[in-house]
Every structure is written in C-alpha cells, then in structure tokens.
C-alpha cells in the first residue's frame, strides 16, 4: 500500500510559514475576499514548488479514500474492498472533527460495497452492521435504521422487526434532536410492521370467519398488534412531515375499529395543518376517505376544490370536472369549465384524450345551449395567445391523427369551436377524417360549420352582451 501511495505527489512545503505570514500581513483585506463566491466542496490542489515528498498519516488516508471513491464510482467493488481494508487503519487516530469522520466513512463505504459485492451475503452484511453500530454512539440509531431498511428490502421482515425492537430499547444519555427524530422513525417503522402483522391476522380471521370459526387467540393477537401499531403511528404523524404510509395505515386501523371521527380528524390535520408540507396525497386520502364514508357531494367538492387550488394539474381533476358538470348549480358548472381548462394548460395533460373529451363535451353543451358562451370567452381570453401554438399547431394535428384518432377528434372539436373552421388543426383533422370516411368526423365538420359564429363571439372584443 505504501509503495502505491508514494506515487501520489502531494507535497507540503516545509518552510513557508514565515513568508506566508509576512505576506498575509501585507494584504489583510485581500484575504477576506479571497474566498470563492460559493462554498465549494473541494478546492483545487495547488501546485507546490517545494520538493518535499513525505507522506504523513493524514495524507495517505486521504489518498486511500480517493482511491476507494474512484473504485466505487467505477463499480469496482472488489478493488474498493481491498482499499477499505487498508483504510480501516484510519480509525486508529480518529481525532478529526470533520463533518463525516472515518468511522462513518467506513460504515458508508462498507455498506455500499456489501450491497453490490458479488460474494457478500446477508449474514456478512448483518455482521458488518453490528460492528458498525458499536463504532459510534451518535450514529447508532442511524445505522440501525439503515440495517433495518436493508433487511426490509430483502424481505427479511422478522429480522427487521427484531432489530427495530432492539434499537427502540437502546438508551444512551441525552438524545440529540437528530437522534430523537431517528428514534421516532424507528418506532414508526415498528408500528408499520405491527400494522402488517395486524392485517395478516385480520386476513386470517376474515378467511376463517367465512367458515364460521373464530380463533380467539388470533383475535387477541390481532388486537395486540393494533395497539402497538396505533401508539407508534399516532406519534409520528403528529410531527410535520410526509407520512403517507403511516397515515394510510393508521387510518385503516381506525376505520376497521370504527373510529371514523378520529380518522377524519387525522386526515384533516394531515391535509390542512399549515405546518405540514402541501402534500397532494393528504388531500387525496381525505377525499378517498370521504368518498368511502359516503359523504355528501358538497364536502367532496370542497375537498377537491382545495386540491385544485394546490395542484391544478392533479389527476383527480377529471373526476372533479365530471362531478361539477353534473351539478345543477351554474356556479359549479362554471368552475368545472375552469378546472378542465386549467388542467389542459399543463404539458402533462396535453395528450390526455379523457381530459379533452371532458372539455369537448362541456363546450359542446354550452355551444348547443348557446348559454354561458361568456364562460368560454373568459377562459379563452387568457389562453388565446398561446393555446393555438401549444395545442392546435399543424404539426400536432398530424401527430395526434397518427397516434390517437380519439384525441384528435376531441381536440378538433374544441379547436373548431374556439378558433373557427379555418383553424389549422380542425382543418387537417376533419379533412383526414372525411378522407378516411369516418362518420363522426363528418358530423364534427357539420357541427363546427353550423356553429362557426360562436368562434367570432368568443374571440371578439368584450362586449356588454356577453358579460355575465
């Protein structure tokens, strides 16, 4: 190793201290500004005029680390492993106050190597992890957690559960904030596994229940799992964060035992507490819960309305639009049009035939009834300068026609209404459709020709007659 290390020509000048001091004194103001504009992870090595080649311990440590890093980045696990065995020496003088000390490095690198090394086994991995846990007190929980994750990903749920229980009972003096968080996570994951056990028992019971035979012991056990899971899960979801998995499990538990109020409250809290991030899933869970509970349309709509405000491009906007379209209230139908227009603003919806058919249907209704043309006009106003290029270009007409006839039909209808019969998109699609002798495209052409005046009203200057 040493002979290899000597190739590295990092040099430390020995006798520069005095001179540097002198120079520094000369330009103190310069030194302050010498920092790069950005706090860089690594600074370039300076070429050195001194001819000292000595390697000290720190240096060789650094060099070794660089080799390991290089091997890891090239997926040469075996080579990295060999270097790591040398690097272990770095533990001897671990006085560093670096952000990440040698013991953590060994843990991280070793884990990574054992993940990928072809000759590693789960047993070896566990053995390594056990050693790593003893290396640093501060990192114990984190290493435990990572160990559990690895066991979980490899399907060893029971071992993971044992490890979690063990880690949970670990105590070491005052806990730091980070350790506190890690402990909460450990408990939560244990709760999650308890939940899984619970649902397993539940399934057994349900299967057996069909036979009319109920096992009291199993039921007891199931309730035990419920209690354990509920306690832990309830804890973590109080803390601001993204807890989709835990919330879902907890709500499932509560629903099973009929505690709908608590479930509703949990979901409400998760969705509407401003300390939590604006997680669309929180709203989705609430909406689904309300739907399951058979809540009124009104509360469903209000839940979705909030989701619409946060994520106007959410997939549930289709449901929302259909719900609103069916509504008797004018205001809601108006909102429905806005919802679908807004959704179609997003690139992700561009080729969604369902969304286009929603819009086409509603617009057709409006055009036929000749009422509320001003709705379309208002929506169109903010879009008319870019929708034609975004949705209705000739290029897209060709491509949509080739890829999805349904989509091009719906889009052509919308284009025909919004831009008139001379619109490129409509012209191309209706022409192609007529050529292909598709009946509905002929109907489409007729419809648009009949209602061509609508286009003038929509795109014309705002006049009082159209204003609501």
């Amino acid at each position, binding site marked *: 190793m040493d002979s290899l290390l000597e190739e590295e020509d990092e040099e430390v000048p020995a006798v520069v201290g005095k001179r540097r001091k002198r120079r520094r004194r000369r330009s103190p103001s310069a030194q302050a*500004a010498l920092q790069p504009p950005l706090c860089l992870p690594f*600074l370039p090595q300076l070429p050195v005029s001194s001819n000292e080649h000595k390697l000290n311990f720190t240096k060789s440590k650094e060099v070794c680390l660089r080799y390991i890093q290089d091997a890891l*980045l090239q997926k*040469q696990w075996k080579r990295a492993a060999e270097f790591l065995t040398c690097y272990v020496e770095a533990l001897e003088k671990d006085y560093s106050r670096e952000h990440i000390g040698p013991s953590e490095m060994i843990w991280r690198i070793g884990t990574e190597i054992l993940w990928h090394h072809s000759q590693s086994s789960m047993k070896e991995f566990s053995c390594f992890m056990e050693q790593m846990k003893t290396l640093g007190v501060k990192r114990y929980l984190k290493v435990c957690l990572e160990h559990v994750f690895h066991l979980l990903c490899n399907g060893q749920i029971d071992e993971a559960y044992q490890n979690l229980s063990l880690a949970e009972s670990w105590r070491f003096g005052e806990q730091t904030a980070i350790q506190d968080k890690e402990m909460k996570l450990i408990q939560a994951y244990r709760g999650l596994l308890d939940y899984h056990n619970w649902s397993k028992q539940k399934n057994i019971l349900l299967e057996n229940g069909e036979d009319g035979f109920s096992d009291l012991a199993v039921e007891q056990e199931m309730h035990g799992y419920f209690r354990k899971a509920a306690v832990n899960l309830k804890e973590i979801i109080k803390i601001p*964060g993204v807890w989709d998995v835990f919330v879902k499990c907890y709500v499932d538990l509560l629903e099973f035992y009929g505690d709908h109020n608590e479930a509703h409250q949990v979901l409400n809290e998760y969705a509407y507490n401003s300390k939590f*991030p604006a997680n669309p899933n929180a709203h989705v869970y609430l909406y689904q819960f309300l739907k399951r509970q058979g809540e009124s349309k009104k509360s469903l709509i209000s839940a979705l309305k909030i989701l619409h405000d946060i994520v106007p491009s959410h997939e549930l906007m289709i449901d929302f639009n259909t719900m609103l379209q069916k509504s008797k209230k004018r205001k809601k139908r108006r909102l429905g049009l806005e919802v679908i227009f807004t*959704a179609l603003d997003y690139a992700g919806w561009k080729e969604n035939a369902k969304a286009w058919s929603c819009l086409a249907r509603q617009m057709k209704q409006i055009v036929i009834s000749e009422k509320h043309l001003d709705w379309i006009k208002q929506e169109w106003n903010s879009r008319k300068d870019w929708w034609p290029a975004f949705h209705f270009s000739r290029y897209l007409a060709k491509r949509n026609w080739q890829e999805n006839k349904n989509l091009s039909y719906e889009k052509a209808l919308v284009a025909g209404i919004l831009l008139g019969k001379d619109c490129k998109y409509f012209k191309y699609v209706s022409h192609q459709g007529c050529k292909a002798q598709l009946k509905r495209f002929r109907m489409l052409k007729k419809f648009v020709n009949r209602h061509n005046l609508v286009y003038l009203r929509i795109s014309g200057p705002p006049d009082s007659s159209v204003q609501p």
Partner: protein
Amino acid sequence: MTTQPEPRKTRCAPGRTHRAVSLPSSSRVLIGARRQRGGDVIGGGRAIPTRYRELRPGRVLSPVPGTAAMEFPAALFPAYFSAGPPREEGGPAPVAGWGEHGQVLEGGPGRRQGKTAFVPRRGARGERWEAADAAAVPVLLPSAGCWFPSPAIQDIVYRSGAGRKLRVGRSGVTLDFARQLGHFFVDHPEDAFGSLGRLLHKNFYLGNSKLKRPARNSTIRMTALMEDIDRLEARRGCPRQHLASRLRWFSHLCRDWLFEVPLGLLADCLHEELMQQWSNLLFDDSFTGGALAWLPPEDGATPVGRLVHPGGQAMNHLYFQDVVLEELPRARGSPQQFELSGRIRQVAAARVDGQDFVGVRSDYHCGVWRVLGKTGAAPTPLQVIRTDMPASCLTVSPHLPGELSVCTQSGTIYLWSVETGLQQLRHDPQTMFFRDYSPWRWSDFTAHPRVLSCADRTGLQCLDARAPKRCHFDLFKVGEEAGCQQGERVVLPMYLGRAHPSQYLVTTQFSVYVLDERLPLVPVLKWAHMMEAPPLFAHLMPGKPGRSHKVLLGASRTQELLLMQYRGGSQSACQLAGTPQKLHNIAGCLQHLPTQLPHRHHLLQQRLTAPAAGLAAMLQEDGPHKSMLVFQLSETGDVFCQRLTHKAAQSPAPLSRDEATTAPGSSPLFEGPASSPQGLGSEEEEEEEQTFYLSNLEVIVDEEEGTPAPMEEAELLQEPCASPEPSSPAVPSPAAALRYRRWLRAFFRTCREPSRHTWTPSLSQRRLFTHRDLEGPAGPSSLHRQMRQRLRQTMQEGRRIQRWEPLALQPPPLPQTLEPAGGPDPLSTRLTAAWAGDWEQWWEERTSFNMAQRQRALRERRRRQKRAKGRRSLSASFTSSLTYQSELSELSDVGPQLLSPSRPPILSQEGSPPAGSPPVHSLPTSPAPDEALLSSQSLRCRGIPKERRKTLRDYLSVWAEGPPEPPEPLGSQASQLCIPSSQSQLSSASQPRRKRPRMGF
C-alpha cells in the same frame, strides 16, 4: 483607468488574432497536402472499420413530450419537514452519498400476495451501463489557429505560500500580486511609464561602465539597480533588508511621479482583477448550462444528428456540425458557421413541433436560431437581443416555438418571444430567500407554458408570466425544508419535463435534488453527489415507461462526468436507481495517447485538462442494443465523446466482468501507458494491438520529421480486420486510436505557431515555391563548425585572427594560398634574403608579384561585369584566367556551401592575398533576403516562370516594408535552390576563385 493590468497568461487576449504565419517548412507543405486529402474533420469516412459500418444505428430515442401521465405517486417516502435556515453543518463530505437507503416504502415490482415488499429510496437496482471504450474519443479535429491556455492556479497564486491544500473556510492562498504587477510593467511599459519615461530617458543610463563626472550629477545608472534587484531575488527571505537600500531610495524617490497611472490606483485595479481571476478559477458560473447542444435526429430518420458548439480562438464562432452516428460518431461535411461578437457562454436547445430552437448566450448578446427537423436543413438565425448587464441564463421553451427566457445579472428575468419580443417578468437585484452576493440568476420553464421558474443562489420560485407579481410560489429553498447544509447554494436548476412534466432538477455544490412542482419545497429525491466541483452542466435522457431516467452531471474545472439514474414520479415515488457512475472525461484519454516528448506532453496535458464547457448526450436504441453517447466540450473547443452500452443482464454476480474492467490504466494508481494485455481475447489480438501501437509511434515520429507517413495507408487496410470486440476497455479500440492519432497530429500542427511566439508578420511562401525550392542544408551549423575549426587551427599555429567576417567562410588554410606549397612564409623569406644580402632583389620580386596580382584582380572584375550583362559560355570566361586549371577542378566538386548567384563577389580592397578575397558565401552578411529574391536573375535561375516573377516581386516587396524579419536562413536556403537545375551557369556566373592550395600551383 485606461489600462487594465492583466495576469501574464491572459495578456494575449483570445480576441487578438494574427495571421497564420510562418515560414515554410517541408513538413507543413506535406501536412497541407494531407489535410486536403483527409478533410477537415476527423474520420472522413474512410477509417470506419467494416464491422462498425454494419452496425446500423437504429431508431433514436426522442423525447415524447407530454406522454407521461399526470399521476401522482400514491404514497411518498416518509420524511420530516421543518422550515427555517439549514441547521446541518456543512463540510467536506467525500463519501456522503454512499451506503444509505434513506427510507423505504411498501410496494415495488416484487410485491406478492400476502407478503409485503419494500423498496428503498436509494440502492435499488439500476440499469447497467458500461463504457465501450477505454477513454473518450475526439469527435472534431482541434480548430486551426493558436490557442491560449487560460490562467492556471500557479500563475495567480504566490508560489511558496501555496503549500497546504486549500481548505474551505480558511484562506490558505496569497495572490502573487507583485509578480503580476511586474508583468504589467514589463509587458506594457508605454502604459506604465510612457510620458515620464520619455522625458527622463536621458537621465537613465543603461550601460555597464562607470559614469563620468559631469553626467553623474543628472543620471542614474540603472544597471546597478538591476543588479540590486537580482541580488534581492536571489536572497529572497533574507532578513537583512538594508542591503536593498539603494532600491528603497529609488522607489522612495520615484514612487509618486514615475508611474503613468498612480501606483495605488493601479494596484487596486490589479488586485481586483486578480481576485476576479482567482474566484473564476475556483468557480466560474458564466458557463452554467453548458455550451454544447445536441440536436437528435428525427424519429426513424437517418442517423445524423447535429452538434451545436462554439469554436474558434475566442470561442465566438457558432458551429452546427452534422454528426453521423456510428460506433464512433463521425462528423460529416463541414459545419455551418456563424461568427458572433462575443464569447459563447451557453448553447441551449429544445425541440418544439419538430423544429429545434437553439438559444445562444454570450455576455451581452443572446441569439436564437431555428433548425428544421430535416437533416441537412440550414439553421436560420431568428433574432438577437443585447443586454446591458451580462446575461446569466438563456433557456428555450420546450412547449412553445420561439420562446425563451433570459436572465441578467442585474436580477431581471425576461420572457423572450421571437414574435412578441421581451416581456419583463421580474426585476429584483436582491436574492429571494436570504441575502447572497452572487448576481447569478437562472430561469427555466415548467410544466405550464406560462409559468416560469426563476432561481438565484438561494432557491427557486415559480411565477406566472401573465401575472408575475401576484402569482408565484416557492419551489425550492436552501434551508431546512430540503434538508440542506449550511453554505449550500443552488448551482444549476433544470426542468426535467422530458422525464416527467412536473419534475425539476436542482443541483447544489453538495447534492442533487429532484423536485416535483406539485409538492413544492420537499424534494422527492435527494442525493449527495460527492463531485469535486459544483455540477454546472446537466443533461437528461428520459427513459421509457418502466425504465430509469438518466441524468448526467458535469463539472467544469475538474471535467467530472457523473451518470445517475432515477425512476418514478408518476405511479411510484421517485427513487434513485443503481449507483452513480463516473464516466470518462477528456483528460482521461491522456494516458492512452502515444508517448510524447516532454514539452509536447505538457502542451497536450494543458489542452486536455482545460475546464469543461458543456455536455450533451443521447440514447440510441437498435433493437436489443441500447447505447448512450456522451459528448463533452472543453473550454478550448474540443469535443470528445464516448459510448456506453447497456448490459441487459442484471445478474447479481457481474464480478468477473467487473473486475476485468479494473484496468490498470483506468485507475489513478497506475498512471502509465496502458500496456497490460489483460483482458484481451487471444494472442492474435494481442499481437495486432502491439503492431498497431508500434506503427502508431512510427507515424508520429515521421510526422515530426516532416516526411509523409507511409504507415498510415497500411494501417487503414489493416484496421477492418482488427479484433472484433476488445472486451476489455483497458486500451482504446483501433478506431479510437486512429482518432487519437489524427487529433494529435492536427493538434501539434495548430500549436506549433504559438509556441514560437513569432509575432512579427511574415508571409507564407508555401504557395509560391515548391518545397524543393526552399530546401537547403543547415547553414549556421556548418558555419559554426568552420569557425571553430579555424579558431582551433589558429591557436595551434599560434597566430591571431584578424577578421572574422569575410574570412569566416574560407577554409582555414586560405591565407597560405599564395605560397608555394611547403615554402617558407614571407617574413622568413624576407629575413633570409636580407641576411643573404639580396634583399633588394626580393623586393623587386615581391612588387612584380603584386603587380600581377593586381592585374589579375582587375581582369577579374571586368570579366564579372561582362558576365553580369549576359550569359556566356563557360569556356569563354576562362580564357584569361590564371587559375584555369583549378577552376575546372572546382567545377567538378560542387561543395555543400555554394555561392550566392545574386551577389557579385566583392573584391578585397585590402592588401590581402587575392585568392582569398572574394567572399564566396553571402550568408553572414546577408542583407534583407527579399533583395536576393527580388533580383530577376535569381528568380530566373530558380526556375520560377516569368509570369510568376512579377507577382512574387510584389508579394515580397510588401514583406520588405514590414518590420525587420528575425534572421531566417531564407537567403541561404533560397540560394541553394538552383543547384540541380542550373549548375553550370551558376558556377560560371559567380566565378569562384577559391582554390585548394594542394590542387593549385
């Protein structure tokens, strides 16, 4: 301040151009000929081995915008969320990205009934991509014209103070201020001391001798000062400062008035500039985004893409180069070229409706080009805007044709539409979330075509272009929300719309984040990338459904390239797939190049390690074969590329192959030429490889000597039958090695000029003369040899040398020519005669001899005058010659040093022995060479046709007006030219009087 001092290295600003200069040398001529044959681009179609031709590139994966559904993952990975400034202490974390699953989530593909499966956030299996070759391969030949290396650390930093490794947060460097100031004084003396220098130059004495009394009162002897300075240099660090009292006295005296620019002001400016250079050296954000764009071919169309890259000496030329996608991408035809008025900082491209829009940013100008999807369609420039402040960002909308967003360093963000012009969205010189001094701003598009993201170092916001003041939300904040470290700053944001319409990539100097705009502030993916320099470039290659998206990160200073994969975003939560992988960088090919001479190696190293300036990549799919092409651009305009192939088998034991790639050359441990045959299939292959390398060396050597490389053709024939699949990328494939060789040849051709620093204008005569005309033996060395010989002989004989000049070329025994061989010298004869008493007779003889000599000289002159009028037959001129015999004998041996036909021999006016007098060679006293060239006789005798003589004369007269030429052996060379063609005429014309003593009398 009119003159801005610059560090020494940059003083030849890239913008300063000078004509390709130089004196012809035979190798150049040959190279020129070869270049015409081979075309200007690497790989002119003939070098592709057949096996590569068979590999037909298939359908190119093209971005399909908008096909991704707008689904949101049903459950996200658990994460804590808290607001506020970052709490985690930052620091160098070299391995922070390894060995962590982060979190786990239920689900995943392996989910079976009854058993829950978990997927990790990091550490899931990814696709396996392997480099197809040992190193990156040049795509384009180095552009012609000299190249200016950018300042290096050692140019700026005070050397001896630079010992320790730099540490973050501590200032370990001292800028070498004094040296740079010194450079300024030396390089720009007019600007530094112009007027006072002129006024006072009489009072400065530069000689060595002591000053005399009267002058001493008003004159300073500078030589003494210089000596003091030198002594001071030699004794650097010596505490005995008083030794420099004279210097102190001088500087004390002059400091206030000597300098044209007040010294304090100058120093301030220099210091500012140095700091600027230093911080740019550490981190230069002007190249953010990268100046390389790849316009992929249309679906199913011909496999010809287009590379858009800057080039030229000042990087101010924009090139659109067609590239044929073969095993090694090959440039096709000559590029379309646009000259811009500033250095190109960024080239951004997006495809909308089948057309490519290419945005180009330089400091004060931004332009947009449109390229139609058809191959070979000419790019059309659409619009140019000028900004008052340097622009820091230009991105092209992937949604609407002809829309771009521009940011300037004043904090202004514009939406730029080719049709409607600029719309200012925001103007805020302050940063968004907390105060940061960097004026850098960035902006990109989002899933909504009217919503733009805008970024500074502290985070990202999205704002609606229709109501930018009212509608905006925070997408990313450097803070606890995203779990950032202290000191972490946004380096490059990028819209990942082609992977998922609502995804965003944000890189910082420590980590890379994937964001979903539907869940702002909380990154859906975070990973510490561990790169040594901040990733300034990124490139996304979207994967098809079920496959991972690939993101390439590139750093500038260290040229790092990192490939990471992630998947998810719509149906499943985002997770990092596979381990990150380091790709070859440009500098990595250095070890695979043939061994070079040290100075060339240094040059090459300097060139190849220049900071990277851009990054582009594409996925290529040909049935089961999937491969990835990665292009990297360096600041010097070199474009290198590498291919990665997809290994479909995801077997858990890929070790054998894996370790086979543990090539000695690919690790920093063994930084030698890759010589190990490890991994080569059979012995035959090995042998071929070796012959290849041998011939490789040969060609390079040949090239140096300027003779054509005969091996090349043989190799070309050999190449197709080379080993079909060198499974180990330890050594470059033959095709790659050929590329290297071509590139090297072109590179050394281009950098020959600047290395000589011939700044005086001179004209290339390559087209006027054939190389044979200009060929000649090396003059000066033979001259030196003669001199030395003569000196030695004179010393041996104990005599003195009276005149070096005219005699210089005469053979040493010339002074003796008068004497009969073996006779005593004149003095002893005279003394002998005097002793004998018949001194008078001796005198008579002597004078009559001199008479004869004079007569002969006169005759000689007359004859020469006659000859000047016209040619004569050889024999006629010898009628009266006394030296008839010797001259005939001379004709038979035309020595290497022959005579200038154009210069009439000058008769010696002194009383020196006549035979020695005519200088037979014009070299040492050669006047301006053009004179020699201009004489019609000389032109004629060189065999230059009549109709070209006039042109030549005009041409050379221009040259003659220029500044004095550095002494070049042109005259002598030219004078040698006609030897073979007009030998007889020449020798008669010059009438050599040279006699070999032993042959004469």
